[in-house]
């Protein structure tokens, strides 16, 4: 029994050592935190790094890099409009269990060349793979149209991005990618993953988090509205009432 564990541990060590010996990622980020303040108008994340290796660069294949940044996932409902009684009404809907609020993929070449279908499925890298939808009702036969619509709408809003020239790789060692975060950004932990691939197979991966948070007034108001919603409501009323009162008094004085 113990022997089996030892063997497993040894095998793991050996495997780890091999992985270590081949290619590994050393990563840098221009910012590990994104603060959403009142003047927030989008942000740019620069992801840069180097490939660390103990052995010479393999010459048989080209090193490729894939970078993904993913916002917090939330289940969403995709609804479709249909003409009923002369007007356009939401009718069919499909629930998508997991859809990141933001998802960017940057690659160093066309994604189908850089990444094999199997690896994409395993690591859920491309946009359609990052979304999971299972709960389509029996009445809907064309449920893929709904996930396509989700991707289409979010891509138009710049919330889903695929940039196949977004990563530049220098001498198979240095790489650099920029990801644009749009102004309409949801706060949360943004999962950032970097994959090194050769011949479509992932040879190394690295994962880190970018913390996107509302700060200052935004933070305070948001928390207040969720935790002390009555107080927040009363505060909005107080502001409205005093603004109305101030306006009428001020202009009454001016008119006099």
């Amino acid at each position, binding site marked *: 029994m113990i022997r089996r564990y030892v063997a497993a541990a040894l095998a793991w060590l050996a495997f780890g050592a091999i992985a270590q010996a081949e290619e590994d990622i050393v990563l840098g980020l221009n910012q590990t935190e994104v603060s959403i*303040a009142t003047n927030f108008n989008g942000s740019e994340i620069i992801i840069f790094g180097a490939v660390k290796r103990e052995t010479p660069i393999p010459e048989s294949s080209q090193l490729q890099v894939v970078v993904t940044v993913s916002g917090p996932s939330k289940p969403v*409902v995709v*609804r479709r409009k249909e003409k009923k009684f002369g007007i356009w009404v939401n009718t069919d809907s499909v629930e998508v269990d997991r859809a990141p609020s933001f998802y960017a993929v940057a690659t160093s070449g066309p994604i189908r060349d850089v990444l094999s279908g199997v690896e994409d499925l395993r690591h859920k890298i491309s946009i359609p793979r990052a979304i999971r939808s299972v709960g389509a009702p029996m009445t809907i036969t064309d449920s893929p149209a709904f996930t396509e619509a989700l991707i289409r709408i979010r891509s138009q809003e710049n919330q889903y991005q695929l940039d196949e020239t977004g990563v530049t790789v220098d001498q198979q060692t240095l790489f650099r990618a920029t990801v644009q975060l749009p102004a309409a950004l949801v706060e949360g932990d943004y999962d950032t993953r970097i994959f090194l691939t050769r011949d479509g197979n992932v040879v190394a991966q690295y994962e880190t988090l970018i913390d996107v948070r509302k700060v200052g007034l935004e933070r305070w108001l948001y928390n207040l509205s969720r935790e002390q919603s009555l107080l*927040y*409501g009363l505060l*909005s009323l107080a502001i*409205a009432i005093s*603004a109305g009162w101030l*306006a009428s008094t001020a202009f009454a004085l001016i008119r006099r």
Partner: protein
Amino acid sequence: MQIYLPIAEISVNAFLLLGLGGLVGVLSGMFGVGGGFLITPLLFFIGIPPAVAVATGANQIVASSVSALLAHLKRKTVDLRMGTVLLIGGLVGAAGGVSIFNYLKSLGQVDLLVNLCYVVFLGIIGGLMFIESLNALYKTRSGKRQPRKKHTWIQKLPFKMRFRVTGLYISVIPPLLVGAFVGLLAAIMGVGGGFIMVPAMIYLLGMPTKVVVGTSLFQILFVTAFTTLLHATTNYTVDIVLAVLLLIGGVVGAQFGTSLGTKLKAEQLRILLALLVLAVCGKLALDLLLQPSELYSIGFTS
């Protein structure tokens, strides 16, 4: 200057919002309406989520109605007793409206309901106002006055009450119903409902015109304040930053609108307002009738 709205979670141009508030303020000062029926659809157009637009719109109306109500209180043109009866109906209606709103939100039909309400009510009110003011223009030229109709069936209802400021002795049932109906609309459409309340008070309850606006403002103030609180505590959709920007534009615009309004004749003003109402109605109707360029939409599960 871009500004990030903490509740709507989008970034918009602050001057656009100030301008929007100002524009609606000018119109509301000119025509003596709250302007909710304009601000909420305009917020939809610039991409504010409908739920946030409706809730924040209600908050904005609180400010403009406080400002106007103070002026009316000074002139003693508010029937507090009638206002209170309307208000009781209004609060019941608003509570019902918010629960209908939340139920339809879970079904994904809230946008449809809000739009349909707008098209139907703006269409009816705009159309009636347009016809009525055209007639009035014609009548003032020919020098005739229309006699007021008597609604005898309203006089027969029980639970009569005396309203001294208004000079009426009528049943409390019609004002309660009118109040409840306006409260319902206030919660669903994010409007004060003055554009429905004022004609209802004149034509249904037979109140004298001079106390109608002040009394309706009194009721609207409390109903929209209540609606704001309900939306804030159940939906978390009141955006203070958005409200403040709209308010600043609104209160300044309203004062310019008031002086602009005194330069025009009442009938001309009403025709202009009617055309404006019909234009907003037409735009919203086209959205419902024409095939949208994107048939799909994304919502969140609660």
